[in-house]
């Protein structure tokens, strides 16, 4: 029997398999940020141990940084202390840090790929669940907890049980106005927020092959939102074209050697999966979430489920709780509902292509005067590119300010928050209660659907706005 791409990478990195227990898995690259690393650093110190392979770690500050006036000291004392702690820890331990003010700073899952640090065949971890993003390059990448961060500090390994294998095949061509974010929201709505728990997912099929690297990252990014340990896509010419020439990508003879290895990273035709799901790309419409987990999603023109359609009593209770939190009525349509905020950003959709998409819609138009915006590039590099392409002028002319790089309103941690009771059309990945601020009502969408809301101030069907 053949191997999956996941097997090939995983098996190669197993240092030792403990009988009836986890494996000791070797980690090639470890990304860290300010929020989930301090306790791991102090843990190592307490044990009197040293960092084992500091050169395989890259750090950035993203979760807890402001997106305005990054040149000034961070106003919130606790946030500042956390960011300063990261700086200290990196200095003490010889770790490369792209901190605030650094030209490579940005959301950890945006900078890894764009700098060419993320490469096919690697094992990659970070104390952040959206580490699955890096799987778009054909790497085994997943989020870990702080104890595990400490394990990697101590030994460049973690203890992991091999997950089951799932493949999701998406065949066919996408409709106009439908993009990769809609694919993943569609999948999660179909299989639920826990539908892939215990699995590592490979995305395959002609619809996936046709996607750009950035669009692939959006899909892999949200693997965790259906419970998967991670998600990945086999590397191909699109991957290699994207990588060639990037700052930390191999060069010259080394590039050729790596390329030959990377071309071996695919799932054998006779490999077996524990579960396979087939999706027709033609069935996918622009998506939006209506509830308080990413599985509660529907087509933007669809209707919220009715109470009668849910039979399981606990599920019914949860649905009612979500309806109350979101201020919605079962059975209602969402189209035309006014929204107060639009957030374009997060490690799901804050790359240059996302900004190009949005710019293509808003070009020459004005944003709705009632909508407040948080438009946040994923990295300094993306911000630079936005300027280089003149997209900033398009946003400016539409009455929209572009902020500085960071996680921003993806999570209610830094100063960018959505007020209680107000609706936010968001390109991020989580619509949990309070995720964007206590009481905030988040609806997850693609950058295109977000652009439509920017112009109309309402939940709108982007397809009616394309020519």
């Amino acid at each position, binding site marked *: 029997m053949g191997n999956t791409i996941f097997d090939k990478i995983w098996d*190669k*990195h197993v*240092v*030792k398999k*403990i009988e*009836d*227990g*986890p494996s*000791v898995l*070797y980690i090639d690259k470890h990304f860290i940020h300010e*929020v*989930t690393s*301090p*306790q791991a650093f102090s*843990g190592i110190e307490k*044990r009197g141990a040293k960092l*084992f392979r500091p050169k395989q770690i890259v750090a950035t500050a993203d*979760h*807890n940084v402001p997106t305005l006036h990054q040149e000034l000291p961070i106003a919130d004392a*606790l*946030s500042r*202390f*956390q960011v300063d*702690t990261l700086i200290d820890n990196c200095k003490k331990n010889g770790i490369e840090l792209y901190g605030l003010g650094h030209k490579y700073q940005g959301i950890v899952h945006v900078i890894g790929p764009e700098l060419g640090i993320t490469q096919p065949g690697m094992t990659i971890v970070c104390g*952040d*669940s959206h580490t699955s993003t890096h799987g778009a390059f054909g790497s085994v990448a997943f*989020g*870990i*907890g*702080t*104890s*595990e961060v400490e*394990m990697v500090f*101590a*030994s*460049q*390994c*973690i*203890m992991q*049980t091999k997950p089951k294998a799932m493949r999701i095949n998406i065949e066919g061509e996408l409709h106009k106005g439908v993009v990769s974010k809609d694919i993943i929201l569609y999948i999660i709505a179909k299989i639920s*927020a*826990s539908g892939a*728990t215990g699995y590592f997912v490979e995305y395959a099929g002609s619809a996936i092959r046709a996607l750009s690297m950035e669009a692939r990252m959006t899909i892999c990014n949200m693997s*965790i939102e259906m*419970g998967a*340990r991670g998600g990945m896509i086999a590397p191909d010419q699109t991957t290699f074209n994207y990588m060639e020439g990037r700052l930390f990508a191999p060069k010259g003879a080394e590039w050729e050697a790596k390329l030959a290895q990377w071309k071996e990273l695919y799932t054998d035709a006779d490999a077996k999966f524990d579960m396979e799901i087939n999706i027709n790309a033609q069935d996918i419409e622009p998506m939006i979430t209506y509830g308080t*987990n990413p599985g509660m999603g529907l087509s933007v023109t669809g209707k919220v489920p009715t109470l009668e359609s849910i039979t399981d009593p*606990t*599920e019914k209770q*949860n649905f009612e*709780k979500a309806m109350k939190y979101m201020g919605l009525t079962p059975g209602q349509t969402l189209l035309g509902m006014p929204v107060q905020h639009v957030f374009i950003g997060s490690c799901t959709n804050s790359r240059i292509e996302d900004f190009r998409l949005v710019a293509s819609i808003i070009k020459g138009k004005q944003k709705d005067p009632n909508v407040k915006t948080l438009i946040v590039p994923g990295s300094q590099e993306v911000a630079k590119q936005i300027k280089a392409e003149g997209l900033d002028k398009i946003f400016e002319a539409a009455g929209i300010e572009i902020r500085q790089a960071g996680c921003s309103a993806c*999570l*209610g*941690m830094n100063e960018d928050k959505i007020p209680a009771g107000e609706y936010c059309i968001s390109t991020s990945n*989580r619509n*949990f*209660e*309070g*995720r964007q601020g*206590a009481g905030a009502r988040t609806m997850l969408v693609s950058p295109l659907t977000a652009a439509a809301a920017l112009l109309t101030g309402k939940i709108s069907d982007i397809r009616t706005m394309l020519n």
Partner: protein
Amino acid sequence: MQSLQKITSKFIPLRIENVDTDQIIPARFLKATTKDGFGKNLFRDWRYENDDETKPKADFVLNQKQYTGAILVAAKNFGCGSSREHAAWSIQDYGFKVVVSSFFADIFKNNALNNGVLPVTVTDAFLQQIFAQGSDDTITVDLEKQTITIDKTGATETFDINAYKKTCMLNGYDDIDYLLSMKDVIEKFEETIK
């Protein structure tokens, strides 16, 4: 890490599905740089009106005096969402030693085990039986035997845990101790993948 062998305790029933780690510990409490004191912010937004400790929400189970104990029993898909280990720290710091659910999110399960909190997965039917018990009834979790028992009815289920994690839990060892002892092996391994 604290060891755990066997525990008999009353329990706190949390009849909510898909409890995500943003609910367990909201992001604004993640600014700490130590592991201490997270218990007071456990389920913060469900516990208090407007984040105000003087205004507990009467309908939330942690605020209902009749419910006490070191075992939290939750509906399915507990701990989904963000990988923040702060969720496990806050549950541990609040005083829970065991969390029971019919389904756990992966990362949470690992994080709990790494912090001496035992996640016990039971069947849906057994979970409903637990929820049907009164606030004075107890459950017993025996890690050595891998059983969970509703003491009043005697109903028992066995639960899974891999042998390695079980040994760690019973003895209070953690993975880092183990990995630190493996350094030579890891160095040799590195040579093979260069």
